Protein backbone atom coordinates (compact mmCIF):
# COMPACT_ATOMS: atom_id res chain seq x y z
CA UNK A 1 0.00 0.00 0.00
CA UNK A 2 1.23 3.46 -0.84
CA UNK A 3 0.27 7.02 -0.09
CA UNK A 4 -0.18 9.06 -3.21
CA UNK A 5 -1.26 12.59 -3.71
CA UNK A 6 -4.20 13.00 -6.05
CA UNK A 7 -6.06 16.25 -6.50
CA UNK A 8 -3.87 17.80 -3.84
CA UNK A 9 -4.90 15.33 -1.15
CA UNK A 10 -2.88 12.39 0.18
CA UNK A 11 -4.82 9.13 -0.07
CA UNK A 12 -3.84 5.55 0.55
CA UNK A 13 -4.03 3.20 -2.43
CA UNK A 14 -3.21 -0.46 -3.02
CA UNK A 15 -0.66 -1.79 -5.50
CA UNK A 16 -3.13 -1.58 -8.36
CA UNK A 17 -4.29 1.92 -7.54
CA UNK A 18 -7.58 1.17 -5.77
CA UNK A 19 -8.44 3.42 -2.83
CA UNK A 20 -7.96 1.64 0.49
CA UNK A 21 -10.64 3.75 2.21
CA UNK A 22 -13.80 4.38 0.12
CA UNK A 23 -14.58 7.38 2.35
CA UNK A 24 -11.50 9.19 0.96
CA UNK A 25 -13.34 9.47 -2.37
CA UNK A 26 -14.76 12.58 -3.97
CA UNK A 27 -15.70 13.61 -7.49
CA UNK A 28 -12.50 15.56 -8.16
CA UNK A 29 -10.50 12.52 -7.12
CA UNK A 30 -12.59 10.40 -9.50
CA UNK A 31 -11.74 12.67 -12.44
CA UNK A 32 -8.06 12.38 -11.54
CA UNK A 33 -8.11 8.59 -11.31
CA UNK A 34 -9.98 8.47 -14.63
CA UNK A 35 -7.27 10.55 -16.33
CA UNK A 36 -4.54 8.33 -14.87
CA UNK A 37 -6.32 5.42 -16.54
CA UNK A 38 -6.69 6.94 -19.97
CA UNK A 39 -10.17 8.45 -19.70
CA UNK A 40 -9.70 12.18 -20.36
CA UNK A 41 -13.14 13.23 -19.19
CA UNK A 42 -15.97 11.60 -17.26
CA UNK A 43 -19.20 12.06 -19.24
CA UNK A 44 -22.69 11.74 -17.69
CA UNK A 45 -22.76 8.12 -18.96
CA UNK A 46 -19.51 7.41 -17.08
CA UNK A 47 -20.96 8.97 -13.97
CA UNK A 48 -24.13 6.89 -14.24
CA UNK A 49 -22.01 3.73 -14.02
CA UNK A 50 -19.58 5.01 -11.39
CA UNK A 51 -22.38 6.21 -9.12
CA UNK A 52 -24.36 3.00 -9.56
CA UNK A 53 -21.25 0.98 -8.63
CA UNK A 54 -20.50 3.06 -5.60
CA UNK A 55 -24.08 3.00 -4.31
CA UNK A 56 -24.32 -0.73 -4.81
CA UNK A 57 -21.02 -1.26 -2.98
CA UNK A 58 -22.00 0.92 -0.03
CA UNK A 59 -25.34 -0.91 0.16
CA UNK A 60 -24.17 -4.52 -0.15
CA UNK A 61 -20.45 -4.51 0.60
CA UNK A 62 -19.55 -5.98 -2.79
CA UNK A 63 -18.97 -4.37 -6.14
CA UNK A 64 -21.30 -5.57 -8.90
CA UNK A 65 -19.94 -7.76 -11.70
CA UNK A 66 -19.99 -6.72 -15.33
CA UNK A 67 -23.11 -8.81 -15.93
CA UNK A 68 -24.93 -7.14 -13.05
CA UNK A 69 -23.86 -3.76 -14.38
CA UNK A 70 -25.23 -4.67 -17.81
CA UNK A 71 -28.53 -5.76 -16.30
CA UNK A 72 -29.01 -3.01 -13.75
CA UNK A 73 -26.94 0.13 -14.34
CA UNK A 74 -28.96 1.21 -17.38
CA UNK A 75 -25.83 1.05 -19.56
CA UNK A 76 -25.53 -2.01 -21.85
CA UNK A 77 -22.36 -4.13 -21.72
CA UNK A 78 -21.18 -3.09 -25.17
CA UNK A 79 -21.24 0.57 -24.12
CA UNK A 80 -19.58 -0.25 -20.79
CA UNK A 81 -16.58 -1.53 -22.75
CA UNK A 82 -16.52 1.66 -24.80
CA UNK A 83 -16.72 3.86 -21.72
CA UNK A 84 -14.26 1.87 -19.60
CA UNK A 85 -11.92 0.02 -21.97
CA UNK A 86 -10.64 -3.51 -21.11
CA UNK A 87 -12.25 -4.18 -17.76
CA UNK A 88 -15.30 -1.98 -17.12
CA UNK A 89 -16.15 -3.40 -13.69
CA UNK A 90 -12.56 -3.06 -12.49
CA UNK A 91 -12.02 0.41 -13.90
CA UNK A 92 -15.38 1.84 -12.80
CA UNK A 93 -14.68 0.51 -9.29
CA UNK A 94 -11.27 2.16 -9.27
CA UNK A 95 -12.74 5.49 -10.39
CA UNK A 96 -15.59 5.10 -7.91
CA UNK A 97 -13.08 4.70 -5.07
CA UNK A 98 -14.25 1.25 -3.99
CA UNK A 99 -12.19 -1.95 -3.67
CA UNK A 100 -11.45 -4.11 -6.70
CA UNK A 101 -14.43 -6.36 -7.45
CA UNK A 102 -13.71 -9.64 -5.73
CA UNK A 103 -14.63 -11.22 -9.01
CA UNK A 104 -14.58 -14.76 -9.67
CA UNK A 105 -13.40 -17.74 -7.80
Amino acid at each position, binding site marked *: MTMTEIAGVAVERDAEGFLVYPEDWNRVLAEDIARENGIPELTPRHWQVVEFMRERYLETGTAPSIRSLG*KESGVPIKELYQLFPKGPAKLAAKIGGIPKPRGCI
Partner: protein
Amino acid sequence: MKRIVILGGGTGGTMMANRLRRVYDEDEAAITVVDKDDRHVYQPGLLFVPFGLASADEIVRPRRRQLRSGIDFHVSEIDHVALAKDQVHLVDGSTLPYDVLIVATGVTLRPEETEGLTGPGWRERMFTFYDVPGAEQLARALDAFDGGRLVVNLIDMPIKCPVAPLEFAFLADWYFAERGIRDRVELTYVTPLDGAFTKPIASERLAGLLAEKGVELVTEFAVGEADGEGGRLVSWDEREVPFDLLVTVPLHEGAPYVGRSEGLGDELAFVPTEPHTLQSLARPNVFALGDATNVPISKAGSVTHFEGEALTENVRRFLSGEALEGSYDGHANCFIETGFGKALLIDFNYDTEPLPGRFPNAVGPLPLLRESRLNHLGKLMFQWLYWHALLPGRDIPGISPSMEMSGKERQLEHVSEGGERR
Protein backbone atom coordinates in the same frame (compact mmCIF):
# COMPACT_ATOMS: atom_id res chain seq x y z
CA MET B 1 -43.70 -32.50 13.50
CA LYS B 2 -41.22 -30.23 11.70
CA ARG B 3 -41.45 -29.85 7.95
CA ILE B 4 -38.19 -29.60 6.02
CA VAL B 5 -38.48 -28.91 2.30
CA ILE B 6 -35.40 -29.26 0.12
CA LEU B 7 -35.48 -27.80 -3.37
CA GLY B 8 -33.21 -29.78 -5.69
CA GLY B 9 -32.26 -33.45 -5.65
CA GLY B 10 -28.71 -33.02 -6.89
CA THR B 11 -25.49 -33.22 -4.90
CA GLY B 12 -26.47 -30.78 -2.13
CA GLY B 13 -30.16 -31.61 -1.82
CA THR B 14 -29.63 -35.36 -1.75
CA MET B 15 -26.81 -35.17 0.76
CA MET B 16 -28.74 -32.79 3.04
CA ALA B 17 -31.88 -34.94 2.94
CA ASN B 18 -29.88 -38.02 3.90
CA ARG B 19 -27.96 -36.23 6.63
CA LEU B 20 -31.09 -34.69 8.15
CA ARG B 21 -32.96 -38.02 7.95
CA ARG B 22 -30.29 -39.42 10.24
CA VAL B 23 -30.66 -36.48 12.64
CA TYR B 24 -34.46 -36.72 12.94
CA ASP B 25 -36.72 -39.74 13.37
CA GLU B 26 -39.64 -39.91 10.98
CA ASP B 27 -42.09 -38.79 13.66
CA GLU B 28 -39.97 -35.70 14.45
CA ALA B 29 -39.56 -34.24 10.98
CA ALA B 30 -41.00 -34.75 7.51
CA ILE B 31 -38.39 -34.31 4.77
CA THR B 32 -39.45 -33.58 1.20
CA VAL B 33 -37.12 -33.26 -1.78
CA VAL B 34 -38.39 -31.61 -4.96
CA ASP B 35 -36.81 -31.88 -8.38
CA LYS B 36 -38.03 -31.47 -11.94
CA ASP B 37 -36.94 -34.97 -12.99
CA ASP B 38 -35.60 -38.25 -11.65
CA ARG B 39 -32.16 -38.12 -13.31
CA HIS B 40 -29.19 -37.48 -11.03
CA VAL B 41 -26.11 -36.68 -13.11
CA TYR B 42 -22.61 -37.29 -11.73
CA GLN B 43 -21.46 -33.99 -13.16
CA PRO B 44 -17.67 -34.50 -12.94
CA GLY B 45 -18.23 -37.38 -15.39
CA LEU B 46 -19.44 -34.99 -18.11
CA LEU B 47 -15.82 -34.02 -18.81
CA PHE B 48 -15.02 -37.56 -19.95
CA VAL B 49 -18.02 -38.13 -22.24
CA PRO B 50 -16.74 -36.06 -25.21
CA PHE B 51 -13.53 -38.12 -25.31
CA GLY B 52 -15.34 -41.46 -25.23
CA LEU B 53 -13.98 -42.14 -21.73
CA ALA B 54 -17.45 -42.35 -20.16
CA SER B 55 -20.97 -42.78 -21.50
CA ALA B 56 -24.09 -41.00 -20.34
CA ASP B 57 -25.66 -44.12 -18.84
CA GLU B 58 -22.59 -44.58 -16.61
CA ILE B 59 -22.99 -41.15 -15.02
CA VAL B 60 -26.79 -40.86 -14.62
CA ARG B 61 -28.79 -42.64 -11.91
CA PRO B 62 -32.33 -42.18 -10.53
CA ARG B 63 -32.49 -39.39 -7.94
CA ARG B 64 -35.03 -41.28 -5.87
CA ARG B 65 -32.69 -44.23 -5.35
CA GLN B 66 -30.03 -41.97 -3.77
CA LEU B 67 -32.44 -40.95 -0.98
CA ARG B 68 -32.78 -42.91 2.29
CA SER B 69 -36.14 -44.39 3.15
CA GLY B 70 -38.47 -41.98 4.90
CA ILE B 71 -37.72 -39.11 2.50
CA ASP B 72 -40.55 -37.96 0.26
CA PHE B 73 -39.41 -37.30 -3.32
CA HIS B 74 -41.70 -35.06 -5.34
CA VAL B 75 -41.18 -34.62 -9.10
CA SER B 76 -42.33 -31.24 -10.37
CA GLU B 77 -40.98 -27.96 -11.65
CA ILE B 78 -41.02 -25.25 -8.99
CA ASP B 79 -43.17 -22.24 -9.69
CA HIS B 80 -42.03 -19.99 -6.86
CA VAL B 81 -41.34 -19.69 -3.14
CA ALA B 82 -43.69 -17.46 -1.15
CA LEU B 83 -41.26 -16.37 1.57
CA ALA B 84 -43.86 -14.45 3.56
CA LYS B 85 -46.11 -17.54 3.82
CA ASP B 86 -43.35 -20.17 4.24
CA GLN B 87 -44.68 -22.06 1.24
CA VAL B 88 -43.34 -23.47 -2.00
CA HIS B 89 -45.70 -23.47 -4.98
CA LEU B 90 -45.07 -26.17 -7.56
CA VAL B 91 -45.99 -26.12 -11.23
CA ASP B 92 -48.05 -29.32 -10.76
CA GLY B 93 -50.42 -27.27 -8.58
CA SER B 94 -49.34 -28.51 -5.15
CA THR B 95 -48.22 -26.31 -2.28
CA LEU B 96 -45.56 -27.35 0.22
CA PRO B 97 -45.53 -25.50 3.56
CA TYR B 98 -42.24 -25.58 5.44
CA ASP B 99 -40.60 -24.79 8.75
CA VAL B 100 -37.17 -24.87 7.11
CA LEU B 101 -36.45 -24.49 3.42
CA ILE B 102 -33.14 -25.54 1.87
CA VAL B 103 -32.37 -24.19 -1.58
CA ALA B 104 -30.15 -26.61 -3.50
CA THR B 105 -31.23 -26.11 -7.09
CA GLY B 106 -27.78 -25.27 -8.41
CA VAL B 107 -27.36 -23.26 -11.58
CA THR B 108 -29.02 -23.10 -14.96
CA LEU B 109 -27.05 -22.75 -18.21
CA ARG B 110 -28.01 -19.65 -20.19
CA PRO B 111 -26.39 -19.97 -23.65
CA GLU B 112 -29.15 -17.76 -25.12
CA GLU B 113 -27.79 -14.83 -23.07
CA THR B 114 -24.76 -14.63 -25.40
CA GLU B 115 -25.52 -13.12 -28.77
CA GLY B 116 -25.36 -15.69 -31.57
CA LEU B 117 -24.47 -18.65 -29.39
CA THR B 118 -27.79 -20.47 -29.84
CA GLY B 119 -28.06 -19.28 -33.46
CA PRO B 120 -26.67 -21.03 -36.55
CA GLY B 121 -23.97 -23.55 -35.66
CA TRP B 122 -25.13 -24.17 -32.07
CA ARG B 123 -24.65 -27.85 -31.31
CA GLU B 124 -23.14 -28.23 -34.81
CA ARG B 125 -19.80 -26.46 -34.48
CA MET B 126 -20.41 -24.69 -31.14
CA PHE B 127 -20.87 -27.03 -28.19
CA THR B 128 -20.91 -27.23 -24.43
CA PHE B 129 -20.14 -30.35 -22.41
CA TYR B 130 -21.92 -28.92 -19.36
CA ASP B 131 -25.07 -30.98 -19.92
CA VAL B 132 -25.59 -34.59 -20.98
CA PRO B 133 -26.94 -33.96 -24.52
CA GLY B 134 -24.17 -31.42 -25.16
CA ALA B 135 -21.44 -33.79 -23.98
CA GLU B 136 -22.81 -36.57 -26.21
CA GLN B 137 -23.08 -34.32 -29.27
CA LEU B 138 -19.56 -33.07 -28.68
CA ALA B 139 -18.30 -36.67 -28.54
CA ARG B 140 -19.61 -37.18 -32.08
CA ALA B 141 -18.17 -33.85 -33.26
CA LEU B 142 -14.71 -34.61 -31.82
CA ASP B 143 -14.78 -38.03 -33.40
CA ALA B 144 -15.41 -36.42 -36.80
CA PHE B 145 -12.86 -33.62 -36.27
CA ASP B 146 -9.67 -34.30 -38.19
CA GLY B 147 -7.85 -31.01 -37.89
CA GLY B 148 -8.26 -27.26 -37.59
CA ARG B 149 -8.80 -24.71 -34.86
CA LEU B 150 -10.39 -25.92 -31.65
CA VAL B 151 -11.22 -23.14 -29.20
CA VAL B 152 -12.04 -23.85 -25.56
CA ASN B 153 -13.78 -20.95 -23.85
CA LEU B 154 -15.77 -19.80 -20.88
CA ILE B 155 -18.04 -16.83 -21.44
CA ASP B 156 -17.92 -15.40 -17.91
CA MET B 157 -17.64 -16.35 -14.26
CA PRO B 158 -19.16 -17.72 -12.16
CA ILE B 159 -19.21 -21.20 -13.66
CA LYS B 160 -19.50 -24.63 -12.11
CA CYS B 161 -16.12 -26.27 -11.60
CA PRO B 162 -13.91 -23.42 -12.88
CA VAL B 163 -11.13 -25.89 -13.69
CA ALA B 164 -13.27 -28.00 -16.05
CA PRO B 165 -12.60 -26.01 -19.24
CA LEU B 166 -8.85 -26.23 -18.50
CA GLU B 167 -9.20 -29.96 -18.02
CA PHE B 168 -11.00 -30.10 -21.34
CA ALA B 169 -8.07 -28.37 -23.05
CA PHE B 170 -5.55 -30.75 -21.43
CA LEU B 171 -7.58 -33.81 -22.38
CA ALA B 172 -8.06 -32.52 -25.94
CA ASP B 173 -4.25 -32.34 -26.28
CA TRP B 174 -4.03 -35.97 -25.11
CA TYR B 175 -6.97 -37.09 -27.25
CA PHE B 176 -5.58 -35.73 -30.52
CA ALA B 177 -2.11 -37.06 -29.69
CA GLU B 178 -3.63 -40.53 -29.19
CA ARG B 179 -5.34 -40.21 -32.54
CA GLY B 180 -2.03 -39.22 -34.16
CA ILE B 181 -3.33 -35.87 -35.43
CA ARG B 182 -2.17 -33.48 -32.70
CA ASP B 183 0.00 -31.61 -35.23
CA ARG B 184 -3.08 -30.86 -37.32
CA VAL B 185 -5.02 -29.31 -34.43
CA GLU B 186 -4.51 -25.76 -33.17
CA LEU B 187 -5.71 -25.55 -29.55
CA THR B 188 -6.61 -22.17 -28.04
CA TYR B 189 -7.94 -21.39 -24.54
CA VAL B 190 -9.95 -18.16 -24.42
CA THR B 191 -10.89 -16.73 -21.02
CA PRO B 192 -12.29 -13.47 -19.66
CA LEU B 193 -9.91 -13.77 -16.68
CA ASP B 194 -6.48 -12.16 -16.63
CA GLY B 195 -4.79 -15.57 -16.36
CA ALA B 196 -5.48 -19.28 -16.78
CA PHE B 197 -7.27 -19.48 -13.42
CA THR B 198 -8.67 -17.25 -10.72
CA LYS B 199 -6.04 -17.67 -8.00
CA PRO B 200 -2.47 -16.46 -8.63
CA ILE B 201 -0.22 -19.42 -7.76
CA ALA B 202 -2.51 -22.02 -9.36
CA SER B 203 -3.05 -19.69 -12.32
CA GLU B 204 0.67 -19.55 -12.99
CA ARG B 205 1.12 -23.32 -12.76
CA LEU B 206 -1.86 -23.97 -15.01
CA ALA B 207 -0.69 -21.39 -17.57
CA GLY B 208 2.65 -23.25 -17.57
CA LEU B 209 0.90 -26.53 -18.27
CA LEU B 210 -1.10 -25.00 -21.13
CA ALA B 211 2.15 -23.74 -22.65
CA GLU B 212 3.85 -27.16 -22.23
CA LYS B 213 0.98 -28.78 -24.03
CA GLY B 214 1.03 -26.27 -26.86
CA VAL B 215 -2.30 -24.65 -25.99
CA GLU B 216 -2.37 -20.93 -26.81
CA LEU B 217 -3.79 -18.82 -23.97
CA VAL B 218 -5.91 -15.73 -24.76
CA THR B 219 -6.83 -13.74 -21.64
CA GLU B 220 -9.17 -10.84 -20.81
CA PHE B 221 -11.39 -11.85 -23.71
CA ALA B 222 -15.00 -11.19 -22.73
CA VAL B 223 -17.18 -12.75 -25.42
CA GLY B 224 -19.87 -10.40 -26.74
CA GLU B 225 -20.87 -12.52 -29.71
CA ALA B 226 -20.41 -16.09 -30.94
CA ASP B 227 -20.66 -16.25 -34.71
CA GLY B 228 -21.30 -19.84 -35.69
CA GLU B 229 -21.52 -19.15 -39.41
CA GLY B 230 -18.32 -17.12 -39.61
CA GLY B 231 -16.58 -19.34 -37.03
CA ARG B 232 -15.39 -16.59 -34.72
CA LEU B 233 -15.72 -15.31 -31.19
CA VAL B 234 -15.98 -11.54 -30.95
CA SER B 235 -15.16 -9.77 -27.68
CA TRP B 236 -17.01 -6.73 -26.34
CA ASP B 237 -13.93 -4.67 -27.16
CA GLU B 238 -14.00 -5.99 -30.73
CA ARG B 239 -11.17 -8.48 -30.81
CA GLU B 240 -11.74 -11.77 -32.68
CA VAL B 241 -10.69 -15.39 -32.24
CA PRO B 242 -11.45 -17.73 -35.16
CA PHE B 243 -12.54 -21.35 -34.65
CA ASP B 244 -13.55 -24.42 -36.60
CA LEU B 245 -14.94 -26.06 -33.47
CA LEU B 246 -15.93 -24.16 -30.34
CA VAL B 247 -16.25 -25.77 -26.91
CA THR B 248 -17.72 -23.17 -24.60
CA VAL B 249 -19.09 -22.90 -21.10
CA PRO B 250 -22.23 -20.73 -21.36
CA LEU B 251 -23.27 -18.10 -18.82
CA HIS B 252 -24.70 -19.44 -15.58
CA GLU B 253 -27.57 -18.18 -13.47
CA GLY B 254 -29.53 -19.54 -10.56
CA ALA B 255 -32.68 -21.59 -11.19
CA PRO B 256 -35.49 -19.65 -12.93
CA TYR B 257 -37.96 -20.02 -10.02
CA VAL B 258 -35.50 -18.11 -7.79
CA GLY B 259 -36.04 -15.11 -10.04
CA ARG B 260 -39.82 -15.56 -9.68
CA SER B 261 -39.65 -15.72 -5.87
CA GLU B 262 -39.79 -12.22 -4.50
CA GLY B 263 -36.87 -11.45 -2.21
CA LEU B 264 -35.09 -14.78 -2.59
CA GLY B 265 -32.39 -14.16 -5.20
CA ASP B 266 -30.08 -11.48 -6.59
CA GLU B 267 -30.16 -10.15 -10.16
CA LEU B 268 -28.55 -13.37 -11.45
CA ALA B 269 -30.94 -15.53 -9.40
CA PHE B 270 -28.26 -16.67 -6.95
CA VAL B 271 -29.37 -16.74 -3.32
CA PRO B 272 -27.54 -14.21 -1.12
CA THR B 273 -26.22 -16.43 1.67
CA GLU B 274 -24.16 -15.86 4.80
CA PRO B 275 -20.85 -17.57 3.86
CA HIS B 276 -20.20 -19.33 7.19
CA THR B 277 -23.66 -20.28 8.52
CA LEU B 278 -25.23 -20.81 5.06
CA GLN B 279 -28.39 -19.08 6.22
CA SER B 280 -29.98 -17.04 3.44
CA LEU B 281 -30.15 -13.28 3.86
CA ALA B 282 -33.80 -13.47 2.74
CA ARG B 283 -35.28 -15.24 5.78
CA PRO B 284 -33.87 -16.96 8.88
CA ASN B 285 -35.69 -20.22 8.05
CA VAL B 286 -34.27 -20.38 4.52
CA PHE B 287 -30.84 -21.91 3.98
CA ALA B 288 -28.89 -22.56 0.80
CA LEU B 289 -25.92 -24.59 -0.32
CA GLY B 290 -23.92 -25.58 -3.36
CA ASP B 291 -24.03 -23.78 -6.67
CA ALA B 292 -27.29 -21.95 -5.83
CA THR B 293 -25.65 -19.55 -3.35
CA ASN B 294 -23.58 -16.41 -3.91
CA VAL B 295 -20.87 -17.37 -1.38
CA PRO B 296 -17.40 -16.33 -2.58
CA ILE B 297 -15.93 -19.73 -3.40
CA SER B 298 -15.92 -22.07 -6.41
CA LYS B 299 -19.16 -23.66 -7.52
CA ALA B 300 -18.11 -27.28 -7.10
CA GLY B 301 -19.33 -30.56 -5.68
CA SER B 302 -16.57 -30.59 -3.09
CA VAL B 303 -17.75 -27.22 -1.77
CA THR B 304 -21.30 -28.54 -1.50
CA HIS B 305 -20.00 -31.63 0.27
CA PHE B 306 -17.94 -29.66 2.81
CA GLU B 307 -20.87 -27.31 3.44
CA GLY B 308 -23.00 -30.27 4.50
CA GLU B 309 -21.73 -30.66 8.03
CA ALA B 310 -22.12 -26.99 9.03
CA LEU B 311 -25.52 -26.75 7.39
CA THR B 312 -26.87 -29.89 9.04
CA GLU B 313 -25.79 -28.54 12.41
CA ASN B 314 -27.35 -25.14 11.74
CA VAL B 315 -30.68 -26.53 10.56
CA ARG B 316 -30.83 -28.63 13.72
CA ARG B 317 -29.97 -25.60 15.86
CA PHE B 318 -32.47 -23.38 14.08
CA LEU B 319 -35.30 -25.87 14.56
CA SER B 320 -34.56 -26.18 18.26
CA GLY B 321 -34.29 -22.41 18.73
CA GLU B 322 -30.54 -22.33 19.38
CA ALA B 323 -27.99 -19.86 17.96
CA LEU B 324 -26.33 -21.01 14.74
CA GLU B 325 -22.81 -22.25 15.41
CA GLY B 326 -22.06 -24.46 12.42
CA SER B 327 -19.38 -22.72 10.42
CA TYR B 328 -18.19 -23.45 6.89
CA ASP B 329 -14.69 -22.15 6.02
CA GLY B 330 -14.96 -22.16 2.23
CA HIS B 331 -13.06 -25.43 1.85
CA ALA B 332 -12.83 -26.62 -1.76
CA ASN B 333 -10.88 -29.51 -3.18
CA CYS B 334 -10.58 -30.38 -6.87
CA PHE B 335 -8.72 -32.87 -8.99
CA ILE B 336 -7.64 -31.34 -12.28
CA GLU B 337 -7.28 -33.95 -15.03
CA THR B 338 -4.25 -33.09 -17.17
CA GLY B 339 -4.25 -35.92 -19.71
CA PHE B 340 -1.95 -38.93 -20.26
CA GLY B 341 -3.25 -40.55 -17.08
CA LYS B 342 -2.22 -37.73 -14.75
CA ALA B 343 -3.95 -35.08 -12.66
CA LEU B 344 -3.25 -32.19 -10.31
CA LEU B 345 -4.98 -31.63 -7.00
CA ILE B 346 -5.87 -28.27 -5.45
CA ASP B 347 -7.17 -27.62 -1.92
CA PHE B 348 -8.19 -24.17 -0.68
CA ASN B 349 -10.77 -22.08 1.21
CA TYR B 350 -12.10 -18.53 1.61
CA ASP B 351 -8.77 -17.28 2.96
CA THR B 352 -6.10 -19.58 1.55
CA GLU B 353 -5.50 -19.90 -2.17
CA PRO B 354 -4.42 -23.26 -3.68
CA LEU B 355 -0.82 -23.89 -2.57
CA PRO B 356 1.72 -26.56 -3.51
CA GLY B 357 2.50 -29.30 -0.99
CA ARG B 358 0.95 -32.64 -0.08
CA PHE B 359 -2.58 -33.79 0.76
CA PRO B 360 -4.28 -34.58 3.07
CA ASN B 361 -1.22 -33.78 5.22
CA ALA B 362 2.57 -33.51 5.13
CA VAL B 363 3.08 -37.23 4.44
CA GLY B 364 0.71 -37.21 1.53
CA PRO B 365 0.08 -39.34 -0.37
CA LEU B 366 -1.32 -36.92 -2.93
CA PRO B 367 0.83 -34.05 -4.28
CA LEU B 368 -0.82 -30.62 -4.49
CA LEU B 369 -0.52 -28.53 -7.67
CA ARG B 370 1.77 -31.12 -9.27
CA GLU B 371 0.89 -33.67 -11.93
CA SER B 372 0.80 -37.26 -10.76
CA ARG B 373 -0.75 -40.60 -11.64
CA LEU B 374 -2.01 -40.96 -8.09
CA ASN B 375 -4.15 -37.83 -8.44
CA HIS B 376 -5.63 -39.28 -11.62
CA LEU B 377 -6.50 -42.48 -9.76
CA GLY B 378 -7.97 -40.32 -7.00
CA LYS B 379 -10.18 -38.60 -9.53
CA LEU B 380 -11.40 -41.93 -10.89
CA MET B 381 -12.00 -43.34 -7.41
CA PHE B 382 -13.97 -40.27 -6.47
CA GLN B 383 -16.91 -41.38 -8.61
CA TRP B 384 -17.41 -44.38 -6.33
CA LEU B 385 -17.11 -42.21 -3.22
CA TYR B 386 -19.66 -39.79 -4.66
CA TRP B 387 -22.43 -42.35 -4.92
CA HIS B 388 -21.50 -44.37 -1.84
CA ALA B 389 -20.22 -41.83 0.71
CA LEU B 390 -20.89 -38.23 -0.32
CA LEU B 391 -24.56 -38.54 -1.32
CA PRO B 392 -25.51 -40.80 1.59
CA GLY B 393 -24.06 -38.03 3.77
CA ARG B 394 -21.09 -39.87 5.21
CA ASP B 395 -17.74 -38.22 5.77
CA ILE B 396 -14.95 -39.39 3.52
CA PRO B 397 -12.21 -41.00 5.64
CA GLY B 398 -9.15 -38.79 6.07
CA ILE B 399 -10.80 -35.76 4.45
CA SER B 400 -11.97 -33.09 6.87
CA PRO B 401 -14.76 -30.64 6.02
CA SER B 402 -12.42 -27.82 7.13
CA MET B 403 -9.26 -27.10 5.19
CA GLU B 404 -5.98 -28.22 6.83
CA MET B 405 -2.77 -26.16 6.52
CA SER B 406 -0.66 -29.22 7.36
CA GLY B 407 1.11 -30.34 4.18
CA LYS B 408 0.81 -27.02 2.39
CA GLU B 409 3.93 -25.05 1.49
CA ARG B 410 3.46 -21.44 2.43
CA GLN B 411 4.72 -19.11 -0.25
CA LEU B 412 7.37 -16.63 0.76
CA GLU B 413 6.93 -14.46 -2.26
CA HIS B 414 4.08 -12.05 -1.85
CA VAL B 415 1.45 -12.30 -4.53
CA SER B 416 -1.14 -9.60 -4.95
CA GLU B 417 -4.82 -10.43 -5.08
CA GLY B 418 -5.21 -9.53 -8.70
CA GLY B 419 -2.81 -12.16 -9.89
CA GLU B 420 0.10 -9.95 -10.83
CA ARG B 421 3.38 -10.87 -9.23
CA ARG B 422 5.33 -8.01 -7.81
